[in-house]
């Protein structure tokens, strides 16, 4: 990323009941290495804290939530309310569960989308392409609506 481009800021954290810190720190480190500003809320972050961070950083391009302990649906129970109240307006990305051979039940993924999650990632390598895609589609939307591009 060249210096002339606007800053890219993301909000990162691990779901409320989850204390897995390793992947969280590595993702923050890697994103910073790619030139992102990372507001890392760390482990055990409730939806309320993500919402507060969004209010403090209205230019955040995404909220990235990691979850490795299988409780993500319960942990994101308050997400629809935060979405509805307009407190989290940027895309929400959920990823995690790095264990080999794990199976995703498609119904679980549908339930996550229903809670207001935009992207569900199986592999951390998908994160940068997902951020780029979400940003491109938001920029395109903004252009269509002849609104100033959020940077």
């Amino acid at each position, binding site marked *: 990323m060249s210096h002339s481009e606007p800053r890219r800021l993301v909000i990162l954290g691990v779901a409320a009941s989850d204390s897995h*810190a*390793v992947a969280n720190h590595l993702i923050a*480190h890697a994103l910073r*290495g790619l030139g992102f500003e990372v507001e890392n809320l*760390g482990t055990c972050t409730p939806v309320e804290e993500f919402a507060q961070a969004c209010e403090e950083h209205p230019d955040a391009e995404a909220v990235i939530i990691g979850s490795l302990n299988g409780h993500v649906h319960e942990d994101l129970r308050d997400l629809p309310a935060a979405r509805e109240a307009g407190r989290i307006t940027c895309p929400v990305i959920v990823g995690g569960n790095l264990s*080999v051979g794990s199976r995703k039940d498609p119904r679980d993924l549908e339930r996550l989308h229903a809670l207001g999650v935009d992207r569900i990632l199986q592999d*951390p*390598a998908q994160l940068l392409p997902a951020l780029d895609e979400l940003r491109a589609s938001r920029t395109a939307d903004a252009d269509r609506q002849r609104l100033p591009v959020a940077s």
Partner: protein
Amino acid sequence: MTKISYLPGRSGSPGTDALPPLAESVDYIASLGKPTAARVLTDARDAGRVAIQPRCGVGGHEEMKALLRELEEQAAPDILTLTIDSHTRLKRFEQALRSLNRAPADLNGYPLVSHGYLRGREVNESVTAPLEIRHGSPDARILFDVAVASGITSFEGGGISYNLPYSKAVPLAESLAAWNAVDTVCGELAALGLIVDRELFGTLTAVLVPPSISLAISVLEAVLAARAGVRCISVSYPQSGHLVQDVAALRAIPVLARTYLPPEVDVHAVLHEFMGVFPKKRGNAEDLIFYGALVARLGGASKLITKTYQEAFGIPDTRANVEGLRLADRANSPLLGFVKADEERVADELSWIVDEVADIVEPVLAAPDTMTAVVDAFAAGRLDIPFSASRYAKSEIIPKRDAEGAIRYLSTGSLPFGDRTRRRNSELLEGAGPKGSGLKGSGGTGPVIGSLLTGLTDDINYFPTLFGEMQKETQRATQKETQNEDAE
């Protein structure tokens, strides 16, 4: 079991107002007829053997006594442990009491404050070995007071090491002040003739902790403890798994003590058997346990905290704990004197470790107020730990195993290392870093997220991989998946 219907206490501090004065507790400990933990450690070091200690703790009072008695009868550890439950660690004494009355087996340790010091004394009197409290509290003042009244002579923790790995949002200034209060009471007890062993928790987050980080944090905590009056300090170090690095790190402890601590403070090296992902297969786990015990012996540790063959599956049962203690103690055998480390390489590694620790701690110790300097240095990343649970450490440093398995710095973050140290770390990691990461020191460009995570995951799974368990696991998972598909 008798229900406790109330907690004696004043101003929200249950269990403390009924405590006896310190002098009474000191007399009580003298009357117990058992050595203090500090005495056991000194005797072990003088005898050239490694004292052995398990982790153990259950919620119920009778169950706790039975557990300690069985461990003592079956394995005769030198020091026994009271592991404290998570509610008590966080001063949630009411919740601990509720669980205790409803379902003590649900507690993941012994809620000493809720039980009260009279029961603490009963536990103490039920065995001949001295006891240590192991917990994880950022603020352990109440727990410490109850422990002393219970006649317990060793207490683990510190203002940095029991905050950053355990709490998300406790300011370091608060935990440092709380532990300073604990250490000050240790000074008062020393004046009354009782030496309390204060063990520091150098294991930190237990994930790939570079030796110089573990030891630098312990040096700072030890300096603060010594100034507050502590006279016996155990510096614990977590086994990395690399023989030369681990032996060097343990032998660095007395060297650092001579440099940074007053001579009247007695310092012991303690090894924590591998704290990361353990192999699942019993034989492999036992190999790792015995290997750890040999490392403790070669490193001149006064004490070893043991693991069990059930480590990969959770809290061990008594049988496994007994087996782990017995196996570790085998490394004390006089027959094993022929086991040696490569002394030249150990000396070289030791000098690097001591230099790295000096780079980290000396700017902090040069400041007029050490506690303030610690808080400021963590805020700036000049002090740091990898994978912190707390937001009060930046965790900019990224560890990585080198080709031989020793833990190095992939990123040194904002640590005040000189060029020489940075260069050595990059050289040792050449070829070991994730492909295309471009990470050299802290000035890296864009690391590939996936390969960084994969590389670190491999390092974390070092022992299961070394024993060939990871590949089998992949196969099993694939089989299971196929079976699931068949069932659908």
